[in-house]
C-alpha cells in the first residue's frame, strides 16, 4: 500500500529524518504550511529532499509557497486544494505527520 505523507511542520524545528525514515519507494510527500520551508534554497532539508529516490513524488501546497515567497524546484509539483484532494485518491492511504 502506498502512502501520501503530509508534512506541515518547519523542518528546522521538526527534523525531516524521522518522517523520511518510513518512506516507501512509491510513497509521496505533500509539503504544507511551514514544511514548505524545506524548499529554502541552499538549506539542508532541501538537499535531503533532492536526494530522495526519483520514484518518490514531492508536492507542495501552492498557497503556502506563495505566502512564504518560496519557489518550488523542478522536482516538486505544486498543487492547489483540488490537487491535494486528487493526491489523496492517488495513494492508498494518507498519513498526516503532525
Amino acid at each position, binding site marked *: *500500500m502506498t*502512502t501520501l505523507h503530509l508534512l506541515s511542520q518547519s523542518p528546522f524545528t521538526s527534523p525531516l529524518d*524521522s518522517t523520511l*525514515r*518510513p*518512506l*516507501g*519507494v512509491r*510513497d509521496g510527500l505533500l509539503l504544507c504550511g511551514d514544511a514548505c520551508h524545506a524548499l529554502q534554497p541552499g538549506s539542508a532539508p532541501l538537499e535531503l529532499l533532492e536526494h530522495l529516490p526519483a520514484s518518490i513524488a514531492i508536492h507542495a501546497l501552492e498557497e503556502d509557497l506563495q505566502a512564504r515567497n518560496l519557489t518550488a524546484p523542478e522536482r516538486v509539483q505544486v498543487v492547489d486544494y483540488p490537487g491535494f484532494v486528487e493526491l489523496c485518491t492517488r495513494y*492508498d*492511504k*494518507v*498519513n*498526516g*505527520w*503532525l
Partner: protein
Amino acid sequence: MAKSMLIVSRHSPWSGLGAREALDIALAGGAFELPIGLLFLDDGVLQLQPGQRPAVVEQKDLAANLQALPLFGVEDLYVCRQSLRLRGLDGQPLALPATALEGPELADLFDRYDLVITL
C-alpha cells in the same frame, strides 16, 4: 474484513496529552476488536523507559494504560530502533515487549497497514 490501523506515537510521556491520547485511540480500536498496531517513534520511545516515577511530577502513570494494550487485543507493538539509539535506549530493557525496527523495516510496516494515524 476490518481495515488495519497503525498508530504512531511520537510524544514523550510527560509532555502533555499527546502520549495519552495516542494510546486512547489504540485502546478504543482494540475494544472494537479492530486490528491495531502501535509504533513508538521519536520521543514516543521514552514512554517505554522502565522505572519512571510520574507521581513525583503529579502525572498519571501511563504504565497501566500501556499494560492494558494486550488485554484489549493490541499486541503488535513496534519501536523505532534509531529513535532508541539516539536516546541511549537501544539494547536496554523496555517497559513493554515491542519489536525494534530499522529504517527500511519501518517502510514495510507502514506498507502493511490500511490506515495510519500519527500523533
